């Protein structure tokens, strides 16, 4: 059998039933093999869409997302999507066609060194030069992508290897002497951690995406309820426990809630789980949680003491370690600390002026009416931060957002992936008028596949987040952020693609059309929300400032 057939059979062995991709010259043998293989291949309209869709599929389902593209430009178009998945530890396997092995290095037509290009943005990558190596490589790729700290793996498959004859012998087990992730936390460290937690007067949990990846939400919730320790979340950690839980303080960091940031600043013990102390959450590193000891639970040893010096590191799987901590957990005597936080919460709620069509209103409204399992994808910018602030995520894997890389154009193709992985759930992409235009071509993909993704464009005719920075820090010189003069008619655009489009300019209009939008089951729906143009995201910690130096809304 041919290498292409071996590849397809190997993918099936790994349980792949859906892929996102785009064909091309040197990918033809594989495409031909996939054509009647039973694996559903979603044809996107740009390879970047394939990578993001595979990513959205993985984030929303916990399974490995698979995408494919041809050599050269096809492969380079995947790069942004691969980097996005890498920064957020998402299991994606990307398969690229490559020119024939004898042509590699000759600057052949559509040749790029994609393993070289993706080396720093993949967890691992492979160039298969021999048909004999296909099965083992696929087995390893899926194992590496989904184990330990997950991440994208790329397999580059030359066209002659796809055509070469070989045998299909799929390895049952995997043995890699150089790759053995640590899952069990060290018992002594866990004991030390619990002792420290018990002695703390002002403990605080800091929850990152690792909790969601490891499926530790239940354990976390039990731990929180047993101990009574309040919780702040990174962007990636939202949804790990319900955002409307009384001890949940929302997101911390640059656009975090005041009470979350105050709690971090005043805490005497920070229990960080599955997060990596990104600069967007720490603010000025020297003044981050100045009086706190730090316990850091993470599966990736290199995350520990990278940005913040940690007092008690525990390397291992969040679910495993939280289960151990839950065993001993008991109610802590921290009433006055919790009361202090609740006072802040009452005194400094997230708020906005309710005049005109406000983006925050739209998000709050959606948060109120959508079911708990609705999946919310976002683009990047103000739309993303308003969503993080005002949507109460109640379940893990319901927020799909590019946290680390901050990729505009991610949300819509990711929503396509999420809708395919979750055909019965409502999938919404909260977009900006800038971001949505970065992968708008995927409307064709969504229409063709009858995907009822809801696109809510928070349209302020500009690149809002960058404009916000210009307004605050660049003397209101709005360089290249105004889109007003050439914005497309989004409703007509939706119509042109065969999707449904609406336009709303007031909250009443929004309220009125939203039931209709949610009812649509057959095709994508786009809602062009003409929001109040001047609205900004507050509170805001300016880059490099301490977390308690928050800017409030501007008039």
């Amino acid at each position, binding site marked *: 059998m041919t290498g292409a057939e071996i590849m397809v059979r190997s993918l099936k062995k790994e349980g792949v039933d859906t892929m996102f991709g785009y064909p091309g010259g040197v990918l033809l043998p594989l495409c031909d093999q996939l054509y009647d293989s039973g694996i559903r291949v979603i044809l996107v309209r740009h390879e970047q869409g394939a990578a993001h869709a595979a990513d959205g599929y993985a984030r929303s389902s916990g399974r490995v997302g698979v995408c494919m593209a041809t050599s050269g430009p096809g492969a380079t178009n995947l790069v942004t999507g691969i980097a996005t998945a890498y920064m957020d530890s998402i299991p994606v396997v990307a398969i690229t066609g490559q020119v024939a092995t004898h042509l590699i290095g000759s600057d052949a037509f559509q040749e790029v060194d994609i393993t070289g290009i993706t080396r720093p943005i993949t967890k691992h990558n492979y*160039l298969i030069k021999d048909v004999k190596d296909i099965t083992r490589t696929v087995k390893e790729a899926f194992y590496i992508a989904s184990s330990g700290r997950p991440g994208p793996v790329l397999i580059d498959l030359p066209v002659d290897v796809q055509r070469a004859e070989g045998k299909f012998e799929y390895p049952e087990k995997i043995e890699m002497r*150089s790759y053995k992730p640590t899952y069990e936390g060290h018992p002594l460290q866990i004991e030390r951690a619990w002792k420290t937690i018990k002695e703390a007067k002002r403990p605080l949990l800091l929850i990152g995406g690792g909790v969601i990846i490891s499926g530790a939400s239940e354990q976390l919730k039990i731990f929180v309820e047993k101990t009574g320790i309040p919780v702040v979340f990174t962007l990636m950690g939202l949804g790990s426990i319900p955002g409307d839980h009384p001890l949940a303080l929302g997101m911390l960091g640059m656009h975090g809630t005041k009470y979350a940031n105050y709690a971090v600043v005043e805490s005497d013990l920070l229990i960080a789980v599955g997060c990596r102390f990104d600069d967007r959450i720490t603010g000025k590193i020297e003044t981050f949680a100045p009086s706190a000891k730090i316990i850091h639970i993470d599966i*990736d*040893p290199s995350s520990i003491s990278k940005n913040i*010096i940690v007092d008690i590191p525990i390397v291992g799987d969040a679910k495993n370690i939280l289960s151990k901590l839950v065993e001993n957990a008991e109610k802590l005597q921290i009433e006055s600390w919790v009361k202090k936080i609740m006072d802040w919460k009452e005194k400094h709620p997230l708020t906005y002026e309710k005049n005109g069509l406000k983006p925050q209103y739209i998000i709050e409204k959606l948060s109120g009416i959508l079911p708990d399992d609705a999946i919310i994808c976002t683009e990047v910018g103000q739309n993303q931060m308003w969503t993080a602030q005002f949507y109460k995520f109640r379940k893990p894997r319901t927020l799909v957002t590019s946290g680390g890389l901050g990729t505009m154009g991610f949300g819509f193709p990711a929503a396509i992936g999420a809708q395919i992985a979750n055909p019965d759930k409502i999938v919404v992409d909260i977009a900006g008028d800038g971001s949505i235009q970065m992968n708008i071509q995927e409307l064709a993909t969504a229409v063709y596949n009858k995907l009822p993704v809801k696109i809510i464009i928070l349209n302020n005719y500009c690149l809002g987040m960058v404009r916000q920075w210009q307004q605050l820090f660049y003397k209101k010189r709005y360089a290249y952020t105004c889109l007003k003069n050439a914005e497309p008619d989004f409703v007509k655009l939706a119509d042109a693609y065969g999707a449904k489009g609406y336009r709303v300019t007031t909250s009443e209009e929004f309220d009125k059309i939203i039931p209709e939008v949610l009812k649509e089951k057959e095709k994508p729906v786009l809602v062009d929300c003409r929001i109040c143009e001047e609205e900004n995201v507050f509170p805001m910690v300016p880059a490099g400032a301490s977390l308690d130096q928050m800017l409030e809304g501007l008039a």
Partner: protein
Amino acid sequence: MAENNEREQGAHTIVIAVENKSGVLARIAGLFSARGYNIDSLCVSETEDPSISKMTLTVKGDERILEQIYKQLNKLIDVIKVSDLTEGDFIDRELALLKVKTLNAAARQDIMQIASIFRAKVVDIGKQSLTLEVAGKTSKVNAMIEMLKSYGIKEMIRTGKIAMARELNQKK
């Protein structure tokens, strides 16, 4: 000499066992450049097990940077083991080839004498030059180079350090 007080300078000798596959060196070099770490010297070769290559690296940095370097190296899928030999006793050697100017007979005599003190070998001779091969600890190689500088070094190449932990390793 920098190498005489290697430890005070924060220089570390790291040996990395890696899968002997193409692209591994690029992964390691890429890791250093992407994260802004400097490699002072690097030497790669096969080991007694042909499926494993070993790299000896000398790097500088404070404890935190080094800790990150080890962790990041360990994270690479093809890296089997990272050892910081600086933490214990180890043997290290380096080889250098030096082409030294010999303007007259006296200079030639002097150079040969210096070579013999350092147990270096004359491996090539020309009308106006001698080529020496010297092996030993980096500090010794440096000392000989220093001695020969005044005669004029036309060309020099060094392998970079290779190192191995001692059998009865004592933690320092």
